[in-house]
């Protein structure tokens, strides 16, 4: 087991290095940060002087080596726009994104599991058919459109819910939370629905398919033959075995969810990491971009590594196949 963990962690480190190199290479293609910092009528000489000062005129390798050295010291550079260390900016924006992802995950869990199970148990029922049909539509609507539609219906027409931002936040030990005030929760509702709309259909279909497969297996048939109550069979025996693949997919999808926050946050002016990333692209705030890639890359790698390790604990055969 120990060797398995070491192997996974080493892989993670290599992945991080590759991400940093790619991120840094992209940085030079994205645009010129100096343009965003100065007004349009500033002379060419002034701009060049600023570029020199920022070390943007050095050769690529010199810049990369300097960058890696700094990263090893825990310094991911300075954001040109925020005029603060990039890590500080990202950490300040992280709570917003994590709360949004958390709320969406809750919505996904509490809606997809009951519906998925029901659709598996009663596949011919009208309600099951309706949700299956709807889920196809749901998968095909892009998230920003869902977001704009939600704003239009609930904010502009009905005026029930706020249209942008996080509302009131409470600061607890540096974590700006919107979960503790009614106003903050109201602000959270629409964005989290919009964000969960991407994953919801996928999970409903996944749970349904897995569950139906499990219900066909021998031991379930044996259970029926033994005369166990249907609740016991569905929820204890069948559902437990349905969950395993769902958890795996869930771990992977969590990363994708974080990627999708970029769109959701932009539409709702939700001050999280995704929104910050898109603005950084527009402003060509390159150091912030690279830092974001590394931070999110790290998050992905950590989540996937943990999922793998847990899986290795739960299911020892995985560790053996990994050794081939």
């Amino acid at each position, binding site marked *: 087991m120990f060797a398995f963990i070491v192997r996974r962690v080493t892989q993670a480190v290599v992945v991080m290095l590759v991400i940093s190199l790619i991120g840094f290479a992209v940085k030079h293609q994205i645009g010129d940060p100096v343009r965003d910092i100065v007004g349009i009528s500033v002379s060419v000489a*002034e701009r060049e002087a600023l570029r020199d000062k920022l070390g943007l005129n050095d050769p690529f390798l010199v810049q990369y080596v300097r960058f890696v050295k700094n990263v090893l010291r825990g310094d991911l550079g300075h954001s040109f726009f925020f005029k603060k260390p990039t890590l500080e900016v990202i950490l300040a924006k992280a709570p917003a994104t994590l709360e949004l992802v958390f709320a969406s995950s809750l919505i996904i869990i509490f809606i997809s599991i009951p519906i998925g199970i029901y659709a598996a148990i009663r596949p011919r029922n009208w309600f099951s058919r309706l949700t299956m049909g709807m889920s196809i539509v749901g998968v095909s609507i892009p998230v920003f459109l869902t977001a*704009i539609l939600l704003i239009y219906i609930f*904010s502009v027409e009905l005026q029930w819910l706020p249209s942008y931002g996080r509302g009131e936040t409470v600061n607890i030990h540096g974590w700006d939370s919107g979960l503790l005030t009614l106003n903050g929760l109201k602000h959270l509702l629409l964005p989290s629905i919009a964000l969960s709309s991407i994953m919801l259909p996928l999970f409903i279909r996944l749970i349904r398919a897995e569950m139906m497969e499990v219900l066909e297996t021998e031991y379930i048939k044996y259970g029926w033959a033994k005369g166990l109550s249907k609740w016991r069979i569905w929820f204890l025996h069948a559902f437990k075995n349905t969950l395993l693949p769902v958890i795996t997919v869930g771990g992977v999808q969590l990363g994708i969810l974080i990627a999708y926050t970029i769109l959701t946050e932009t539409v709702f002016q939700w001050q999280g990491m995704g929104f910050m990333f898109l603005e950084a692209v527009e402003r060509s705030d390159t150091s912030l971009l690279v830092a974001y890639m590394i931070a999110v890359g790290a998050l992905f790698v950590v989540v996937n590594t943990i999922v793998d390790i847990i899986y290795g604990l739960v299911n020892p055969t995985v560790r053996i196949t990994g050794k081939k």
Partner: protein
Amino acid sequence: MKKLVTVFLVLVVALTFGTVAGAKTLKLAMDADPVSLDPHVQLSGGMLQYSHMAFDPLLRWTKDMKFEPRLATKWERIDDNTMRFYLRKGVKFHSGNIFTAKDVKWTMERLKESQDFKGLFEPFEGVKIIDDYTVDIVTKKPYSLLLNMATYIFPMDSDFYTGTDESGQPKDAIVKIGPSFALTHESGTGPYRVTYREQGVKTVFERFADYWDKGSPGNVDTITLTPIKNDATRVAALLSGDVDFIMPVPPQDYERIGKDKNSQLITMSGSRVITVQLNQNRRPEFKDKRVRQAIVYATNNVGIVDKIMKGTATAAAQQAPEGFAGYDPSLKPRFDLKKAKELMKEAGLEKGFECTMISPNNRYVNDEKIAEAFVAMMAKINIKVNLKTMPKAQYWDQFDAQVADIQLIGWHPDTEDSANYSEFLVMCPNKETGYGQYNSGNYCNPRVDELVLASQTETDLKKRSEMLREVERILYDDAAYVPFHWQNLSWAGKNNVRLEPIVNVMNFPYFGDLVVE
């Protein structure tokens, strides 16, 4: 858990009854927020809008483009190079310090240090202090735009910004990247103090109790400024009642806001002109005046205004809009396809040619669509244009490198004056002087240069206007560039917000005078 519930209840109560009766709050949403609290860090519309909230200029533009006194009560010309300003007495800075002549001198010196402003203040020698409430502003040569530039002198609290901050950096340092004292502290004389700022998220302005202008009708106590970048979200925030005032308003939503019974929309023809430049160094064809004229005749800019801008712009045939010194009313848009084809024939290019073009896709309103329409119009006179569009972050370097034969650029003059367009867009490119910095057409006409340079030192405004009108006529006849239109400015707010009196063609809403009913 119990504790949490208590905290929660207290918060709910606080939120419900937290607003004091009678205090007027304005929730304002713009597409961006000030990049810094230091007014000299960047020369941009957003920073000047902020300057008018936290600071006061010596004088400012009125709605009808005249000057009105602010921190200077009156001014008079002493000689060709000197203008004397009499300063207002009894004005307090937010720090409590008294405003005097030394603050004006100090501010001018800092402006000349600022990377962004030093170009504008290049013609200035400096400020001479006569006494505590009188200063002479001296220029190196006679300078016709002295008063225009005085609208950019927002005196800063010299005592407040003198010394060093905790990190040992001088408090008056102008730092573009990285922390500085002025980035996070301000002390101006303006109607509002900044009491809270989280960059890119929220800025809170509180009315300054000791504000000198007791005559101002403004009655707003608190302004919260939230940047909302996404157009659709900004409009939705107004329509849903989450904010009271938005700027700018995307043209596609004019109708929607106009129909909304709780909101009002104000638009005004602006001074940002959208043009394309035809690079004569890259393409010999563009050296031929007839070809350039043909291109202008083939460009249906009135059609672009109607179809693409949905009437939210004014078709242009010259650089400066009406109300500017160089505006010549006789110059009209001239779409005439037949004539365009004749000119191409005359030039021996009936069969046309192929060329390249670049345009930004997120800088000006509908920039990409305008460029595409232009391409389609050029096809009618057999000029095949290969268009490439890109985001503004990448565009300007490409523009400077002149990677394409035709390049799109919009221009709004920092000086609110005609000559500024020509200085940047059509004067002969000169690395030494910096003139023609954005002239990627490489149009070069000694007569134009001569007139524009002469206009800088011509203090007889009538004569000066005639010079600048002549420039516009030459550019028109020469088809130096292809003009499209001037973008409209737009603001929208709830019905109880009296926008009309505070907005102007410079797009510096004077929030200090805003009345909310």
